[in-house]
């Protein structure tokens, strides 16, 4: 079932289009990776999808059952003040806001869910710490936990691994993969094209001349994919089976 359908979309700043005529669609349960050079408009596209900026041309159609408070979001450069007086737990819990209308506090179910998410992301023991005292990587995980609290059907991630070390990055990818298996649709901007083709079901490669959109399999065998990807194709169709993955993981 289609969750999101973008047709002929143009977005930009100050009257200058950064993205021109991009079309793609996302079905429920898809895992879409958006790749492309610096300045190709990946972040702009994410902001456009979230309604954080106006569009010049084209349409973005959301499925009627997808409301904005079902969407989780992790931005590339969150703008928060470093000395903000709040605990990790408070910040993670603020992800639930879209689904609650009034008052202080949160329900018991929400508190339990938040505790579980913090455990999964690896910030469980930090929950009473001051957000400002954490390292950049720890803060990134906290913001991921907040995004997960907000996520019901769809999560948008803008270069989520930029502040993480390699081990944390691997953890992160498997966490997102697990989330995707649970039925959450994932849209992720990534620089790491090899990780993108390993995890994603679909690829959108933004390019000033001609953008590519298709399944990962189609991308790998496209001229653009052949140019960008160094490794062999790990997909079922090419039946390279597990030897490829083992050698890559080692």
């Amino acid at each position, binding site marked *: 079932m289609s969750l999101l359908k973008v047709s002929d979309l143009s977005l930009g700043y100050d009257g200058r289009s950064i993205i021109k005529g991009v079309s793609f669609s996302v079905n429920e349960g898809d895992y879409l990776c958006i790749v492309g050079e610096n300045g190709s408009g990946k972040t702009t596209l994410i902001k456009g999808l979230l309604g954080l900026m106006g569009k010049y041309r084209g349409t973005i159609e959301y499925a009627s059952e997808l409301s904005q*408070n079902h969407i989780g979001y992790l931005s590339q450069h969150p703008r928060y003040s470093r000395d903000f007086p709040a605990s990790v737990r408070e910040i993670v819990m603020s992800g639930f806001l879209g689904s609650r209308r009034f008052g202080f506090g949160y329900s018991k179910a929400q508190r339990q869910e938040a505790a579980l998410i913090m455990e999964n992301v690896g910030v469980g023991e930090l929950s009473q710490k001051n957000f400002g005292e954490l390292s950049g990587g720890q803060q990134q995980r906290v913001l991921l936990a907040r995004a997960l609290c*907000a996520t019901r059907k769809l999560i948008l991630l803008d270069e989520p691994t930029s502040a993480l070390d390699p081990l944390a990055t691997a953890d992160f990818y498997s966490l997102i993969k697990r989330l995707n298996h649970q039925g959450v649709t994932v849209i992720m901007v990534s620089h790491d094209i090899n990780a993108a083709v390993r995890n994603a079901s679909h690829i959108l490669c933004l390019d000033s001349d001609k953008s590519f959109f298709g399944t990962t399999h189609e991308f790998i065998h496209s001229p653009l994919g052949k140019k960008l990807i160094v490794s062999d194709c790990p997909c079922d169709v090419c039946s390279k089976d597990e030897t490829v993955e083992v050698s890559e993981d080692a």
Partner: protein
Amino acid sequence: MLDILSYPFMVNALIVGVLIAVCCALLGVVLVLKRYSMIGDGLSHVGFGALSIAAVLNLSSPIYLSLPVVMLAAFFLLRITENSKINADAAIAVISSSALAIGVFIASINGTNINLQQYMFGSILSVGESDIVISVILSIFVIAMYLLFYNKIFAITFDESFAKATGIRTKLYNTVISLLTAITIVVGMRMLGTLLISAMIIFPALTSMRLCKRFLTVIITSVVVSVFCVVSGLFTSFTFADIPVGATIVIFNLAVFLLFLLVSAIRKLLTRKPKE
């Protein structure tokens, strides 16, 4: 000491002062954390310009002119601050000094019937019945907003684009907060003066952030600090009749800030020692 309560103007000043102190502290926490502190300063200067014009026009209640003008200015200053293309702090500085200059210019041309010093540094005597009514309604609004929407205010203050992306109407909240700030400043500046009212917004939040590390405790401590400083300032100003109340209140704010700074420095020293 309590005989000051037998003076009706002091009772008026105390009521308005405490209510404005609560509003300033509550709104100030959000403004300071969102890096919007300059908005308060800009608004008070625009308020000064509006008051001067109101005096020239011989309006019976200058507040009828200054209130809408400052609210309009709040709306524009917010848009300027939100727009990343404009250099917001420079723009606000230019607007506030221009408004101040226009105010001084008009007041000087018009001559004797405007008391410049009273506008600049405030006066207890200028607090009237209408100020009490406005500040009661205002503080009910501000307190109710913080009680009902505490979580949303937290989310918007911490990270506005995330809040917006997950479906919170951030523009509405920002506009309401800046309009309430405008009203608070217009009412408060009569007592504290143009030059000192913005300190009431910034100081309590800054002071409580020295010691408190949670949003809620920062808010509560700010309110307590703010009310304490206003009440002490009023009593001091009443005891030494020649000192404008704005100055005594700001000096109390500064003293409490320095005290909190000292305590936090001592606390840091104490927690560091066992490690070494």
